[in-house]
């Protein structure tokens, strides 16, 4: 967990308003699991007051050899819009890696893993899938997007294993939502990242099998100190009664915390 000014190696728009940002620095060496995130300060030129807070972005992939990591984000508001203007060679203030990611060991040797992603919930699943595929796990991806123009990394995922693309408006892949296709798929462990309604639907459908979910919450500190990002535990007898998304998560085993 370090704070450093990382250098932009490359930055490109890979789908409509969705950017792939490769950064160079010391943070990659600290990453322990796929699904961890970094906290990015944008527009923080000296004395600039806004945006004040950092923005949490999942680590998509990390390359230890090249000391680099890749983020994929949607330009959606004040901070991400400013970030989208970053140019090659520029420095960006990054704090990370933060939180707990997806447990790679939760899939048995030679087992099957199912990855379910929606929109900008897809990026951390790519790094996860790479690692699982590397250890010989058979990976299946079910990725939902709003429309054809929002799709990214389709080929990259396909190279790792079976990849089912869905769009809500049917402009590419199957029309519909990720939950429409889960029924037929066989797997030992599932991982999901995406909007809350998707996570809820997925949790209901998956039922008993192991499922890990990556959550989002508005954050302050990103390291567990401010209690901005809490979620209730489902177990009412849990000693604390809550978890912090930033440091106890963002990935939780399904059922550990309330989805709301």
């Amino acid at each position: 967990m370090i704070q450093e000014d990382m250098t932009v190696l490359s930055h490109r728009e890979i789908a409509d308003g969705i950017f792939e940002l490769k950064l160079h620095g010391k943070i990659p060496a600290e990453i322990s699991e796929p699904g961890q995130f970094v906290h990015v300060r944008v527009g923080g030129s000296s004395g600039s007051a806004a945006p004040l807070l950092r923005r949490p972005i999942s680590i998509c992939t990390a390359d230890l050899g090249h000391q680099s990591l890749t983020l994929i984000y949607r330009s959606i508001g004040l901070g991400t819009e400013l970030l989208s203007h970053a140019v090659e060679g520029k420095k960006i203030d990054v704090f990370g890696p933060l939180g707990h990611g997806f447990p790679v060991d939760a899939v048995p040797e030679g087992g099957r893993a199912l990855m379910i992603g929606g929109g900008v919930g897809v990026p951390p699943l790519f790094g996860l899938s790479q690692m699982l595929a590397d250890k010989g796990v058979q990976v299946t991806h079910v990725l939902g997007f709003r429309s054809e123009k929002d799709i990214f990394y389709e080929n990259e995922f396909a190279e790792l294993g079976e990849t089912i693309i869905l769009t809500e408006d049917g402009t590419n892949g199957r029309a519909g939502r990720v939950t429409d296709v889960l029924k037929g798929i066989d797997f030992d462990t599932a991982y999901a990242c995406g909007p809350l309604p998707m996570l809820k639907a997925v949790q209901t459908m998956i039922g008993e099998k192991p499922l890990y979910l990556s959550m989002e919450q508005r954050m302050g500190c990103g390291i567990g100190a401010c209690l901005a990002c809490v979620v209730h535990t489902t177990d009412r007898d849990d000693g604390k009664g809550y978890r912090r998304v930033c440091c106890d998560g963002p990935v939780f085993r399904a059922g550990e915390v309330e989805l709301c």
Partner: protein
Amino acid sequence: MLDVHLPGLDLKNPVMPASGCFAFGAEYAKLYDLNQLGAIIIKAATLEARFGNPTPRVAETPGGMLNAIGLQNPGVDQIIDHELPRLAEYDTPVIANIAGSETSDYVRTAEKMSKDPVVRALELNISCPNVKHGGIQFGTVPEVAAELTAKVKAVSEKPVYVKLSPNVTDIVAMAQAVEQAGADGLSMINTLLGMRIDLKTQRPVLANKTGGLSGPAIKPIAIRMIYEVSQQVKIPIIGMGGIQNADDVIEYFLAGASAVAVGTANFVDPLVCPKIINELPGKLQSMGVSSIHELVGRSWKL
């Protein structure tokens, strides 16, 4: 050069993380040695454990942020048993922020907390805008604040710093009331009550609707209040509100603060406290000042 001496607090430097922005230190201890800090003000303690408000609990605003954490904490007993022992390992004094809904809660929490040897002073949080009962009232009526201060002073084994709310017409009257009631010092300022509305949902961003405004945006208000109050009271002031760097610390001292706390800036730059502490000696040198204490109130003493 940086050491300051206040009731109950012999500090190697005047910079401490503000209450609620540093929990009980465990998280930031992973980033740097807490012994560098002048003191640590821990998260508000209440008599019983509290979960606080629903989320979203934070929202960004121009030059600031809103929070409505709602005093989430494990309760005074848990804090004494599980959090303070870890802080005993450092030679950095701990200031315990205490809050409540009723006078009796405050008094019992203060009593317990002040007995702990790790705690060197109490910070009486009469001003948290994010709790439904009590809280805000204590912080806006001088007589009520004075009565609470007197009762807490009566049971506390440690000096009591009263943390004032800026959401009042007359901050000097508040300060004088708690001084007369026996406060050993003041903390200024807590957050300003604010709101942000989400254009998409058309409702307040925070689940609690209103929240406390902190960060650089409020610094001019804090500076003005400390400038006014420090001329009218004899007790020292721990200044806070939007501090981001060593220059801001010096501005607080010139206004009349004798120490400072850094809140929101910890979220912006997790290493901000040690950075400020390291920058201060050079700044003082370039000003020809041999002890930071010389700066206290200079803007109105000159």
